[in-house]
């Protein structure tokens, strides 16, 4: 399965990126550090996210036929490009492993408490490999079915919660009690990076679409829509649970689903689990695909299927071994967002664009 004959339609790209953005955000109360302004934080982060989408797609526009790693190598040359590309592989393996782990934990908590974590993760990877071995375009096509399911479920949760009369919109007030500072602080870097910045990995397959001109528009639309959805989720989380309990509860979405009580519609946890699971599946799969693609690009690997399988199982190993517990996981989160993520997702792409701009200038000058 070489990359040469892969094509993704723009609709599939849209749906894939949308599912990627929904991803694991449903597991956390993002931006809750700003208390009841969390929904506002998301909107602010959304705007920052849009700015970086411009950066990512600008790189893509300069090198329309290449994926992100090829772009790095084109700009920096092989000497600097390849080490940086490998760093990206290592870095992307990390969120992939964490994602995998998160969803394993979720299944253990909510559905199969007596099942061993390794067995669940193993099946998860297996399913992901099964789809990815047929190529990224197959993953794209499955998203045509799954995205509507996720969206319908999400919207029905909001409607049901509203009908249950458990949402107290007073909990949202006062808006910006301590000024705009806490909102901005939480929005950048935390929320701007997770989930909006992470979309950079999609630039590993942006080059497969034939409608290159639509990439920027599509990505921006994805950021806006998923940001609005996320903001809405936080709005409901806080109005149902209050800011304090939203921040301490494990999976806010499941908690608010638990209070739904409309006639016979109670205990509909399964809807929440479907949303979380599908989001997680796509996010993890795209990360896995990205990591394997980085390695394949750098080393010019011919047998991509084998590489993908090996990467998948390596990922499984990392997910199980590198995180002793959920507590460690939560402790690690601010650390890697503040240092690693910001470097890889914001600083390096900006630098790349800048270096490329200088190179273009030099070319123009030398030609002129």
């Amino acid at each position, binding site marked *: 399965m070489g990359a040469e004959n892969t094509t993704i339609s723009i609709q599939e790209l849209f749906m894939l990126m949308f599912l990627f953005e929904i991803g694991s955000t449903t597991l956390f109360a993002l931006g809750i550090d700003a208390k009841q302004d969390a929904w506002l934080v998301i909107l602010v982060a959304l705007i920052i996210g849009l700015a970086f989408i411009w950066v990512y797609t600008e790189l893509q526009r300069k090198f329309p036929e290449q994926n992100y790693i090829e772009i790095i190598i084109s700009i920096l040359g092989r000497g600097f490009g390849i080490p940086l590309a490998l760093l990206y592989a290592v870095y992307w393996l990390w969120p992939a492993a964490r994602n995998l782990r998160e969803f394993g934990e979720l299944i253990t908590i909510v559905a*199969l408490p007596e099942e061993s974590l390794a067995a669940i993760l193993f099946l998860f990877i297996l399913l992901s490999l099964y789809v990815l071995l047929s190529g990224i375009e197959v993953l794209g096509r499955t998203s045509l079915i799954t995205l509507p399911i996720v969206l319908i479920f999400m919207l029905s949760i909001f409607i049901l919660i509203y009908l249950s009369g458990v949402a107290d919109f007073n909990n949202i007030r*006062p808006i910006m009690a301590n000024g705009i500072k806490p909102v901005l602080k939480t929005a950048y870097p935390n929320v701007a990076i997770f989930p909006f910045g992470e979309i950079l990995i999609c630039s590993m397959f942006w080059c497969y679409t034939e409608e290159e001109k639509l990439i920027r528009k599509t990505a921006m639309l994805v950021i806006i829509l998923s940001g609005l959805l996320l903001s809405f989720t936080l709005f409901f989380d806080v109005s149902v649970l209050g800011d304090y309990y939203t921040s301490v509860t494990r999976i806010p979405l499941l908690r608010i689903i638990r209070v739904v009580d409309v006639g016979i519609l109670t205990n509909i946890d399964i809807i929440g689990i479907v949303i979380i699971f599908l989001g997680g599946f796509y996010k993890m799969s795209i990360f896995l695909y990205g990591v394997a693609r980085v390695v394949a690009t750098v080393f010019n690997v011919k047998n991509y*299927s084998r590489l993908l399988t090996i990467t998948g199982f390596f990922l499984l190993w990392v997910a199980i071994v590198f995180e002793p517990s959920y507590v460690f996981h939560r402790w690690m989160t601010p650390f890697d967002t503040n240092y690693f993520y910001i470097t890889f997702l914001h600083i390096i792409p900006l630098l790349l664009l800048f270096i490329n701009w200088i190179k273009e200038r030099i070319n123009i000058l030398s030609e002129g």
Partner: protein
Amino acid sequence: MLSLHQLKGMMKMNRRSISLLLLLLLVVNLTACAGKREMDELGIVGLTAVDWDPKQQKYEIMVQVIVPSRAGGGMGGSNIQLWNATATGKTLMRASKNLRSRVSKKLVWFHSNLIIIGEQAAKKGLKDIIDFFARNKEIRYNSWVLISEYPIRETLESNPRFEGSLPSEIQGLIENNKTDWSESYSINLKDMLIRLADDDFDEITGRLTNHRPQLAPEGTYEQLDLVKDVPVDLRDVIALSGAAVLKDGKLKGWLDRVESKGYLFIADEIEGGAIVEYSKEKEKFSAEILSNKSKLKPEFKNGKVSFKLEVKTDVAITEAITKLDLTKSEDIELLQKDLAKEVKKYIETTLKTAQQEYNADIFGYGNAIYRSYPKKWEEIKDDWDQIFPTVVTDIKVEIIVKRLGMISQPITKPQ
């Protein structure tokens, strides 16, 4: 779309990996039915009750369990097997583990929607207890949390009268209170959690009492026969009456039914069915509330906080023993003023009890200040306990008589 040719190529390439995957899928079988739960192995908890034994310094946990295998021995399923199980322990988890050592079924909490807390435990503090429930993943966030006036042992020994089991009986009482009589107020676990976490909101929830029928045993003919063999002290029935007031999760005291009604007016929680009644000399009136809208607003004047409460209520006259001519608008206006005065009295009594007697901010006055004036709240929140009892509330009640009932003039004159 993939063409058949491409598909074939794919199959060839991946035949090895696919067969490997299939082989690996066998692993799934090895886990068998891990985590399975058969219906006849389950004990479905209908309600959970917690109490504190000050002598032994131990928590007491009590569950009422429905056993499905026994439930509905025939098609009708009329005699559900229910039993109470109790255990004690230094911590709640200890108690619940001790409980399991006495139960041969696997206890599941998915259908439990009542948490009853005994007076002693409530006095000791709700925070520890609620922490246990909030951490447990099986407990539903919309479970009602009620405070029992008597030790839970006594409360749970009451007999359900109309329903098959005590949990559904209590649930029925709560539902009825909302729509039919509005003289109690219950909150669920989620709201309890929010209020316990907030400093600007004290807790209030329904009071569960045992009530001994004064007249001959209540019930159906069938039950009357049964009751003959039951000792008199077991004939108690359960009742929801008034509310419990807590401050920082600790029980401070009770609100009686009229005070609870006053609370509902302040908190804008009246859905219907509540009545306003009064008698003046020989005249007697009662009116049922059709709909109600209350607005609570904090105001700052000269740095002092005061509240403005506006109540707008539509009522229907249900009893009127009077000389007034209810078809005349000035007489109706007189009646409306008197009813409003009465409602104002309810509200004032409740405010007095909460502010002076218990000093518990059950109305969320602090919360309302925080929502509207976050900066000012920061200044006064540390002294809130001293400020709250002195807060003045300006009450405005407006009552509109919407209906007069099926007769427009009184049948008898007051005697």
